[in-house]
């Protein structure tokens, strides 16, 4: 087995360009996609008359008081184009003391935003009317503000254990999601060398050598898994120390999840390679199949958004679903191994099944 690992290593040393390119670009891409995420959804605001007037800037301040949306001034042209091109769900037009929502796509975000904007406008207009009647406008506002600092009715949100409910960190989820997604490409590319070896005849020579079949497969598995672990670890370290993402404090468990996930992906790629046989076919279908997995698993959406039983069922067979569950569990909810055994054992189950069927297919068919 050591000889297989060594042969891989020698290959990499002679021609390191491609692997480094894959890892490098994946890391850069994760940084690009994951680094600029903000929690708040950005909504463009523009005025009917062009420039935002002073009074309209006040509206902007009031709208920004919530913590779900970030409203920002934009010129009308670009705000409208963004909506029309489908790059933003909605934009807001201010017309003096009124507003209009610009949207062309139906989305839950537009509904939520409309609710928020409506409340802000109704309150402020009422406040203006009342304070105008009361005369002393400034004093009136400050009285209201002090009163509302200690409101009579409040809502306490708690977890079942009586502790504060932890805020879910969407930025962290996206970072995890992108790194798990992009590592699939690197691993897939690496595993594809098996089919290439078969075609170039290297595989036949390996079989004739004293190395055992199990060692050959295990060597491939181990090597590709290590590549995956290295890539994800580098990404996580960069995000932890350069971008200050909180990854929890159970680094050992994180590493365990990363290793299991990499192994499962290798197994999945071996299954695909077993089904598709030639490197060309692998290259043909792999890029179409891989991007679907994070999409269906709901990696890009807040947890709980997807409720369709079909979709949830389909997501169960993708390793990324379980790895995401484990990673967010560790980093956000500080889960220990007691809570993690379910997603982890699912990962192992997928790995074993894929590997079993995949190797069987590979052995049965001859190129």
């Amino acid at each position, binding site marked *: 087995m050591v000889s297989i690992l060594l042969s891989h290593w020698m290959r990499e040393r002679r*021609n390191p360009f*491609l692997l480094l390119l894959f890892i490098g670009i994946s890391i850069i*891409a994760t940084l690009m*996609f994951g680094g*600029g*995420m903000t929690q708040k959804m950005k909504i463009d605001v523009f005025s009917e008359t062009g420039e935002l007037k002073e009074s309209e800037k006040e509206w902007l301040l009031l709208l920004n008081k919530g913590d779900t949306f970030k409203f920002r001034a934009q010129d009308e042209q670009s705000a409208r184009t963004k909506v029309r*091109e*489908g*790059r933003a*769900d909605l934009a807001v037009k201010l017309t003096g003391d009124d507003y*209009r929502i610009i*949207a*062309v*796509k*139906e*989305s*839950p975000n537009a*509904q939520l935003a*409309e*609710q928020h*904007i*409506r409340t802000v406008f109704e309150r402020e*207009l009422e406040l203006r*009317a*009342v304070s105008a009647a*009361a*005369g002393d406008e400034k004093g*009136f506002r400050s*009285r209201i503000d002090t*009163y*509302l600092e*200690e*409101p*009579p*009715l409040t*809502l*306490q949100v708690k977890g*079942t254990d009586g502790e504060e*409910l*932890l805020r879910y960190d969407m930025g962290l989820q*996206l970072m995890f999601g992108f790194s798990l997604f992009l590592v699939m490409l690197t691993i897939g*590319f690496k595993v*594809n060398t098996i089919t*290439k070896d078969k075609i170039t005849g290297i595989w036949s020579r390996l079989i004739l050598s004293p190395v055992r079949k199990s060692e050959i497969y295990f060597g491939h598995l181990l090597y590709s898994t290590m590549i995956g672990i290295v890539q994800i670890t580098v990404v996580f370290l960069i995000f932890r120390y350069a971008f200050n993402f909180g990854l929890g404090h159970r680094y050992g468990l994180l590493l365990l999840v990363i290793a299991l996930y990499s192994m499962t992906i290798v197994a999945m790629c071996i299954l695909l390679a077993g089904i*598709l046989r030639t*490197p*060309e076919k692998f290259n*043909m*279908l792999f*890029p*179409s199949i891989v*991007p679907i997995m994070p*999409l*269906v698993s709901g990696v*890009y959406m*807040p947890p709980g958004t*997807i*409720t*369709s039983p079909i*979709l949830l069922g389909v997501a169960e067979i993708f390793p990324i679903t379980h790895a995401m569950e484990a990673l967010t569990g560790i980093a956000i909810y500080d889960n220990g191994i007691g809570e993690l055994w379910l997603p982890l054992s699912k990962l192992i189950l997928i790995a074993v099944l894929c590997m079993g069927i995949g190797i069987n297919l590979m052995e049965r068919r001859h190129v």
Partner: protein
Amino acid sequence: MGIYFKKDILLFWRDRKEVLVALLLPIALTLILGFALPGWVNNSNPSLEMKVALVNQNRHTEGVARFHEQLKGSLLSPDEQDGLVEETAMLDLDPEAMLMGMFRSEDVSRYIEVLQLDHETAYTKLKAGEVTAVITIPETYTLDSLNKLLLNEGDGAALLLTAEEDTTKVSVLQNMLNGLLSTVNYQAALSHAAGSGSDGSTWSAPRTPVGGLERIEGVRMITSFQYFAFAITIFVTLSISITMASKSITEKREKVFTRLLYSGARPMQFQLGKMASTFCIALLQMLVVILLSHVLFQLFPGRPLSFWLGLGIFMVLLCAVVAAFAGLFTAMVFRMKDGDVAVGISFIALILLGVIGGSMVPMYILPDWLMEVGRLTPNGLALTSLIQWIQGTPLQELWLPMLSLGIYTVIIMAAGLWMFPKKGGI
């Protein structure tokens, strides 16, 4: 060139199964995503459907009675006391009625189901995942809230929302409850502030904002089905260029190309044949996927022929870019010592294009500057202009993306032809 064209089409025909998968994949995906997020299609929001338990431990009438007793024992004058008693009656502050009123309203009852339970059952159900959250009204809620609202004494009352973890549903519920409570708070603040200044009834009714959606004549809303159908189809079409390039690896390995050169063929024709066949296959695939999705999901009911022709124009332009990419990638395969490196690079390029062009992830989660770059990618251009075309934008306003797609085709094709080995170059 014709003979090369035929050869490449035959190459595809030999891999019918893979082509079929590439055809079915986008359809299946649209189906899944379209059903998963039906809330985007019609206004009710089933993805937010939830069950909520309401535990009422509050003794409302007792609270009111105790408040009245408290008043009698206070130092207030009898007149003031009567006024406050009257106000309690007017406020009608039964929290249970207030909450149930909200949950029973037409908008909310469509997706929230409320179960009135006792404390134990509610928590067992929460742990079992049968309810999303438990709302608890504490025992002294009425008394505390009356004290604070009318006398400005004490810390006020608090509702308790308990949930297993922070999900979208819980935040929606939280927002809703906060909205309800803050309305009461706000009214109280208003009357409190006004009460110490004027008598409170002199102000004129405030203007309510009109708000709502701006309707633009002739613009149609896009459904999520339409959006996904195109986003996914565009990406799968784009990946045909990789398929074509990978097939060239075999041709390179089996020395097909070298043999062709010996027969006196011109390399240029070989590559043009590849591009032409890619164009046809890509167009065929897009047409089948879009037409099939149309039949299955009623994508564009009742649209005129001119609409379909416009759709066709964009598809042709996109497929031309895909063909040009196939040419470029093929040239890279022949030029580089290791054909796999070439395919690997093309593969990465394609995934990056897919992500920033909005074909694989919802575009709004990307940072701003990437979004700007993304709209300049060929697939991004095709997607955004198709979206605009579906909305009913006239073709004259879309000439810029059309021209850009054309320019992309020319540049990429030129690069591919330039890179392709010349006669005697191999």
